[in-house]
């Protein structure tokens, strides 16, 4: 079952390249939260209950509900246009993301390790590189944040692969998630809306080096 959920997760990454509206990106993030909830539930069922509750709560409340709501709120409050405005045509994005997934599959096949669950490694790597790719090729600040959140989801998948034996690391990852998520989005996106009129990275080019 985990396999199917993770394959669906990989497909959401492709959809990320396809979608041209911010709304699409946000619903993908919410859907990824649900998928991660499923994976975490199946994988970590054996660890102690309080910890499991914490992790599941994080995936469902934070990743699935709070962050998408908040992003929507920011978009409305700052009057951000609804198009994602990529530098590349979407078709190229889809092709490149496909190659990222293929590449991480080949990379994870190169590893000879009986302990590793290769699918986790593969999905985490592809989410990491897709996130970086989204950050590089989209113009808006908010899409940069979304790319970062995708990277976070990838990190979460990877931490699930070791989570059974060291739940502490999963918690640490979640800490990063909440820390940065709240700070990056909460305080910052609001402030940027106040100071800058257009929500565009072009505005952040005044400092040259």
């Amino acid at each position, binding site marked *: 079952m985990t396999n199917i959920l993770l394959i669906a997760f990989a497909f959401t990454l492709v959809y990320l390249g396809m979608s041209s509206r911010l709304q699409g990106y946000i619903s993908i993030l919410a859907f990824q939260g649900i998928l991660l909830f499923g994976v975490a539930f199946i994988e970590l069922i054996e660890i102690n209950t309080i910890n499991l509750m914490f992790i599941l709560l994080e995936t469902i409340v934070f990743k699935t509900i709070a962050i998408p709501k908040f992003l929507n709120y920011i978009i409305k409050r700052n009057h951000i246009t609804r198009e994602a405005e990529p530098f590349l045509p979407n078709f190229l994005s889809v092709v490149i993301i496909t190659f990222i997934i293929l590449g991480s599959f080949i990379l994870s096949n190169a590893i000879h390790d009986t302990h590793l669950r290769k699918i986790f490694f593969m999905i985490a790597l592809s989410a990491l590189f897709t996130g970086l790719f989204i*950050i590089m090729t989209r113009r808006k600040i908010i899409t940069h944040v979304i790319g970062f959140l995708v990277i976070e989801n990838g990190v979460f998948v990877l931490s699930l692969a070791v989570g059974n034996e060291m739940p502490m690391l999963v918690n640490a990852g979640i*800490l990063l998630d909440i820390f940065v998520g709240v700070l990056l989005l909460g305080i910052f996106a609001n402030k940027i809306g106040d100071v800058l009129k257009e929500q565009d990275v072009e505005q952040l080019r005044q400092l040259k080096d």
Partner: protein
Amino acid sequence: MIGIYLIVAFVVSTLLFFNRNKILNYLLVGLFVVLQWVFTIYEYRHLNIEELGYFIPDSLAIIFLIVLSIVCIPAFYHSYIYFKHHRDTPRAQAIYYAAMVVLIVALSAAYLSSHIAVTWIFIDLTTLSAAALIYHRRNVRALEGTWKYLFVCSISMALVFIGILFLTLALQEEGLKSLSYHALIEKAPILNTFWLKLAFLFIFTGYTAKAGLIPMYTAGIDAKDKAPSPAGALIGSVLMNVGFFGIYRFYEIISHTSIHNWSNKNYIHIGHPYRIYCNSLYASCEECQTYACLFRSVSYGVGCHRFGFWRNRALCCYPSFGASLAC
């Protein structure tokens, strides 16, 4: 002691955040400096004794801690001078001091921690407090600097976390669980070198955002410039030390394995050209004098890395601190 230190420092920083009274502010900052020094001396007297399960003051940590404690005195002193000239709102001042205290506490705790994930958590905390410092001036350029710093650092911290996860995979293969430096150094020779290499690459790349080295060096440049100069000096000196410190801790583990040579090569090949690059670039640019000073801090650091003397790295933060203040 570290428990008391963390709690008292937290209380002081909270009070500083809510306090608008000037005299109380002096008192609290004075209290914190005294606490910092008492703590430093206490840890120096109790070398290599574990506290709270996650903190061991070994000699490396103590050197860095002493440097930090020395630097924090002029930093606070110059902050007062700074605020004499800039009439900022009491609220902005309160946030500034509270963030600075949190930054110093997070740095101390990161130095002392004996567990790789705990170090990571505290270094993550420095990102947040440094962001509050950089945003102090609250104009567009400060905002831009803060955004870049926060964003690049967050990504780098995520990369470090991935590196730690790879390390964990290597450990799991051997059926080990402990992530403390001590255990890691002991077990390093038997770990899978493939995972170690990957972990090294990710952790190195991640911490370079803090240390100001090549792949992620863009994080710090605007930040140092846009923060108020005392804070900029802290960011340019001790905060860069902590990045180096994180790399060094991992390098220590690597040095006990067969990939030591490999990592050495990477280390130098990444660091050395960069030094030449930034020195030549900024020496040639008249307007970039400020940057030149700041970059010197980077290049001192890289120079010391080359010779592998961490003591030099710790000490070289004085010239860079001075240079930053002078600008």
